[in-house]
């Protein structure tokens, strides 16, 4: 229960940041892919720079989780084709709908209900991938 409240609070913080940074705005995504503003690059750049430092510190000092367990970062499996094709398809959808999986939920809470169509079709898209998985190059 206590952990559940922790996850809920983390989600609330994330949702507020996504909405207030306008990373959940279709217009910001359009602007980003036109290289007309630093805003989105600044957000991702700051998050990744701090993220690299955080993960290096966790590794260097063998930081334990809140529950005393070791924090392990699983390496992603090696491949080029799945990341390139999958990534490109994702990018096409990201630019068209102007929303990726995090912002979709923030927009739901913000009351932009047509986003539910995007969430539903994204779930269906995930299902299609699972269904065709064995036939796709990885």
């Amino acid at each position, binding site marked *: 229960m206590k952990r559940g409240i922790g996850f809920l609070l983390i*989600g609330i913080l994330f949702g507020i940041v996504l909405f207030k940074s306008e990373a959940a705005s279709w217009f910001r995504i359009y602007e980003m892919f036109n290289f007309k503003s630093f805003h989105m690059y600044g957000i991702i750049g700051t998050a990744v720079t701090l993220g690299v430092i955080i993960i290096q510190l966790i590794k260097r000092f063998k930081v334990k989780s809140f529950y005393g367990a070791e924090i392990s970062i699983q390496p992603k499996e090696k491949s080029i084709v799945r990341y390139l094709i999958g990534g490109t398809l994702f990018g096409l959808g990201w630019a068209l709908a102007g929303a990726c999986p995090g912002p979709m939920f923030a927009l739901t809470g913000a009351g932009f209900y047509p986003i539910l169509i995007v969430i*539903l079709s994204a779930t269906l898209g995930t299902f299609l991938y699972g269904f065709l998985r064995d036939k796709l190059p990885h």
Partner: protein
Amino acid sequence: MSWIFGTWPWYVSGMGIAFVMFLLLMMGKKFGMSSNLRTLCSICGAGKKASFFNYDWKAQKWNLVVVAGVIIGGFIANNFLTTDNAVQIDSEMVSELKSLGFESAGEAYLPKEIYGLEEMNLQSILILIIGGLLVGFGTRYAGGCTSGHAISGLSSLQLPSLIAVIGFFAGGLFMIHVLFPIIFN
């Protein structure tokens, strides 16, 4: 305190996202929003059709709680922390979008031409469906989305994530610069 009600600067937002990733690691989990779409499939019984969805989704319940939080966060942000939610994008972008038929550019959070409930039409619904399908299919094929690859993966210096992010941009640039002029003319 008035800064809270405007657009949060990029460095505040970037710090916030890094902090979210840090907290999830400290909770013994990892940052990744698109896995929830797979969990939703499993809950709906997709495991009967594809073994990819036969896994212990109950172990992923924590991430659905994060999603519930994101929904609440979006509600709080739009209703209590925002006075005017119009997104002030670059003025050149505004005129370009207006010429493509997006009259709401510079005056709304999302384009009414795609996300307006009253303006809904066959084209806008198709855009939402196709966009969603591509995001859902692509993210699972690539094994992650913006949070899992662009933030988490790049932060742990993983080459696969860099390849995925290059793909994100290849697809996004192709959509905006090649397909948009065809779709919206």
